[in-house]
């Protein structure tokens, strides 16, 4: 209990005076305080009076104490704050803040805004989101009686994505702190001191040469226009903002799309996003407008005439596809679904394949998702990881294996950092560089072929030393004795010295011995060995032995491969991973869909490509890319959904222009099984249409029933009815297993597969982002592989 402005209020332990004020609806002006950052006390605007305390303590960094008597605003404080802000403004171009014609000017935007730097009154790129102006208006600053100093720093625009004009910087330190505290990178710092202080890098290096990953966290934290994203910089205040979910990777960041003149001009992370909490990465923050606004986006349906693709109407194109598809036998048709489609589109696509065509030949175009689903179904009954982002943040030890997480899932590193701050130990297996070395406690640089021996040795050591969770293993696990027996054949010394891993095993095992929850994140590098499923099994074994079953997270790179799998776009599973060979399930689905279903499992992605090459598969319906070139030789009929011209055009017979994720409604499911909404910010480009609509149109032409939906919410309703896992927004729960199964170790030598992990994190629907966004290419060329 303390008194604030004469009112007695309760407060939480550890809260600062500023937090207490905020909780009670009292505004105190601040510039350097930030909800996600620790108190700093740089701007001095939040000075308050506290009885029995000397001077004017800053509210942001003074802990609330029982019995305090606080005054947050009176004439004296107002004068003081005004003086402080005047001092700040004496080094910040401020004609836009104190001009007497401000109101009219803001309304009509009379001056052009195309200059490179702030020279006069209307050239600030941050117009519309200036915290400095807000505070100045609150304090009623009308003139500044201190001579103005223009620091005359050169404009810094040699780096990709964002410009820096440190003449506008007020040294609040938010950018430095967000980079250090939240992102754990520290690519910028305060350099020099006093009047010469400037945010910068060591020896004035460029950000590219420094360790910046261009996540844009600094740009979003900046209260002024000092840091500004280059694309869309001069569009001014957006007409509207739409919150949607990013589909470029599987983290499920919520983004605010800024729309001006019916065009997407920028994307910013949403502070309320459950997965990202105001953070984003280079792709989500900077690449989306360029990706979806490309001039060569597909705008019309195309059909092949005399060897050339020519534009046509939707009616003709869909009729053609309907006619042709009905001529093939069910087993001659295959469907490959893009892992970037919405849940609704994926659901309708598999329904179309099963109900209208009558085949189970449907799969996701993704090697990694295939392996993940196969192993996870085996382990837990559903094709999803067991962990959530909350599990990462609450973990006491974390292992990351086979992933360049800083490039593929930068936002997850924020959660890992949060865990580390609370004392979690983090080990990285498979990659080593300066930056990751700093972000983890222990780096094990080994080839994928050594993953399996390493994990087998870890299991052996855990079992031999009896450092596993005995209660959990006894009560919740089956086959422990089988596992134990299989470990008898493993000779620690032999394997560890052979693979040069002897010293690291002990380190890893002792890390997992710290009590509490564990979490393992595995990435697509495990595909570089013959049986990646074995690695997933071993990882789950470790978690089970340690009593942390809910800690396995596959670092899937594609935006919605989780959801596409959940929706049953798989050769052997119906929606919700219900087995196709189960007669009860089949008859249930036959009832709801009012159609006869084939119980013969379909062909997988790889098998379909092989069949297409050999001529057994005659027609292929593909909604993405990423298919190896030259594999579709014998194909008779190829239908494509795409957003850009693709290498498959030569073989395609019909091409439908699809909407990008910023242009469609629907839901997608993130890596932590979180179902989130997509909201169309803009209309699809040209005549493009969302995938689900295209499929419905073709189904209608084929006189199929059950494809008549007004919008995606109706489709989602049907999904919720049919899929026992998904019942709405939020994380869907795993099946409640009575007992987990431990898998025996039958192999410790792993042959190399012919797959080389190709940086998937640069694709959207098979479109290479680095091709469309030249700045991303510059960055990835510099940071590839770490």
């Amino acid at each position, binding site marked *: 209990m303390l008194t604030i402005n004469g009112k007695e209020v309760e407060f939480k332990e550890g809260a600062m005076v500023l937090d207490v004020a905020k909780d009670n609806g009292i505004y105190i002006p601040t510039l350097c305080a930030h909800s996600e950052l620790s108190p700093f006390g740089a701007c001095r605007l939040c000075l308050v009076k506290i009885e029995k305390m000397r001077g004017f303590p800053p509210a942001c960094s003074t802990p609330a104490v029982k019995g305090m008597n606080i005054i947050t605003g009176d004439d004296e404080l107002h004068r003081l704050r005004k003086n402080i802000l005047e001092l700040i403004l004496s080094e910040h171009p401020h004609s836009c803040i104190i001009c007497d014609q401000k109101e009219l000017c803001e309304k009509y935007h009379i001056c052009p805004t195309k200059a490179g730097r702030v020279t006069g009154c209307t050239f600030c790129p941050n117009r519309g989101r200036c915290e400095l102006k807000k505070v100045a208006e609150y304090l009623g600053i009308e003139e500044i009686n201190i001579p103005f100093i223009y620091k005359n720093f050169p404009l810094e625009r040699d780096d990709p994505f964002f410009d820096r004009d440190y003449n506008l910087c007020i040294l609040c330190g938010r950018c430095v702190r967000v980079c250090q505290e939240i992102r754990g990178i520290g690519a910028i710092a305060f350099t020099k*001191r006093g009047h010469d202080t400037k945010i910068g890098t060591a*020896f004035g290096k460029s950000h590219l040469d420094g*360790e910046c990953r261009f996540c844009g966290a600094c740009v979003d934290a900046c209260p002024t226009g000092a840091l500004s994203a280059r694309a869309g910089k001069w569009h001014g205040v957006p007409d509207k903002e739409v919150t949607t979910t990013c589909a470029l990777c599987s983290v499920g960041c919520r983004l605010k799309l800024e729309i001006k003149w019916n065009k997407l001009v920028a994307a910013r992370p949403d502070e309320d996003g459950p997965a990202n909490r105001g953070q984003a990465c280079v792709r989500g923050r900077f690449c989306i407008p360029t990706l979806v606004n490309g001039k060569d986006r597909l705008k019309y349906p195309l059909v092949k005439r005399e060897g050339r693709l020519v534009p046509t109407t939707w009616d003709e194109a869909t009729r053609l596809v309907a006619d042709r598809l009905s001529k093939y036998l069910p087993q001659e048709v295959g469907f490959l679904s893009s892992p970037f489609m919405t849940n609704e589109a994926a659901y309708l696509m598999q329904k179309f394949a099963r109900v209208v065509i009558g085949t189970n030949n449907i799969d996701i175009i993704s090697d990694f998702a295939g392996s993940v689903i196969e192993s996870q179904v085996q382990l837990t009954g559903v094709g999803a990881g067991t962990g959530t982002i909350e599990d990462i943040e609450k973990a006491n030890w974390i292992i990351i294996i086979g992933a360049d997480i800083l490039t593929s899932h930068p936002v997850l590193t924020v959660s890992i950092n949060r865990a580390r701050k609370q004392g979690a130990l983090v080990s990285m297996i498979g990659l080593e560089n300066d930056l990751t070395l700093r972000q983890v406690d222990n780096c094990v640089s080994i080839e994928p072929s050594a993953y399996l021996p390493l994990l087998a040795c870890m299991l052996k050591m855990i079992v031999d030393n009896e450092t596993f969770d005995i209660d959990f293993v006894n009560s919740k696990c089956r086959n422990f004795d089988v596992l134990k027996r299989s470990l008898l054949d493993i000779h620690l010394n032999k394997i560890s010295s052979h693979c040069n891993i002897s010293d690291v095993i002990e380190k890893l095992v002792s890390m997992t011995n710290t009590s509490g929850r564990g979490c393992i994140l595995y990435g697509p590098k495990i595909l570089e060995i013959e049986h990646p499923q074995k690695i997933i099994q071993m990882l789950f074994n470790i978690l089970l032995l340690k009593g942390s079953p809910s800690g396995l997270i596959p670092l899937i790179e594609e935006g919605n491969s989780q959801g596409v799998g959940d929706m049953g776009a798989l050769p052997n599973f119906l929606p919700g991973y219900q087995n196709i060979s189960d007669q009860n399930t089949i008859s249930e689905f036959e009832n709801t869909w009012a159609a006869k279903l084939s119980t013969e499992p379909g062909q997988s992605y790889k098998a379909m490509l092989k069949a297409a090459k050999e001529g057994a598969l005659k027609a292929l319906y593909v909604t993405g890319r990423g298919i190896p070139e030259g594999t579709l030789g014998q194909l008779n009929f190829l239908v494509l959904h795409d957003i850009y011209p693709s290498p498959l055009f030569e073989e395609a017979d019909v091409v439908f222009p699809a909407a990008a994720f910023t242009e469609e409604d629907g839901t997608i499911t993130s890596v932590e099984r979180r179902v989130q909404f997509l909201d169309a910010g803009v209309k699809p480009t040209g005549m493009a249409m969302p995938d689900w609509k295209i499929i419905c149109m073709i189904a209608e032409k084929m006189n199929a029933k059950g494809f008549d939906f007004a919008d995606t919410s109706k489709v989602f309703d049907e999904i919720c009815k049919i899929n026992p896992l998904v019942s709405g927004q939020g994380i869907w729960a795993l099946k409640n297993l009575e007992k987990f199964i431990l898998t025996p170790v039958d192999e410790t030598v792993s042959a190399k597969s012919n797959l080389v992990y190709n940086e998937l994190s640069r694709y959207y629907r098979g479109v290479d982002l680095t091709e469309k966004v030249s700045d991303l290419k510059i960055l990835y060329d510099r940071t590839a592989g770490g």
Partner: protein
Amino acid sequence: MQKLIDEAIKPYEGEKGSLIPILQSIQEKCGYISEDAFSVIAQRLKMSEHEIYGVATFYTQFRFTRPADHLIKVCLGTACHVKGNSLNLNNIVNMIGIKEGEVTSDYRLGLETVHCLGACALAPLATIDEEYYGNLSPRKLEKILSKYTKGKAGIKDEESKKKKD
């Protein structure tokens, strides 16, 4: 250099809050803190080099460029100014090819200006290291500088002295 940096860091390895003593120790051993030193410290302390640079530039005690072997200080105090020492400064600039505040590319000579060296009777005046050279004229300057630029005659040239020993 690498060895000296390693030696400087070693006693502090694994110790928290040891950044400033490490920086001091490196400057003591190497004469300055090089760019390479920053990346080595960053690696060892698991810190960002930018953060370290921020700490180091806060203090005026740290130098980040290699100092010259011999430092020329040209006086521009009142007496020297009246006696036209700025002309001598121009001459030096022309002769050794660096501006005030710079160091020659072979690190032999550095140039600075000062305001009064306290020997106005000798104006116009310059010092090189601890040696005073008064009543400077262009010809005299050329003679003096040639000792340092060519490294002959051994005056004050400690390195060549050591070699002789």
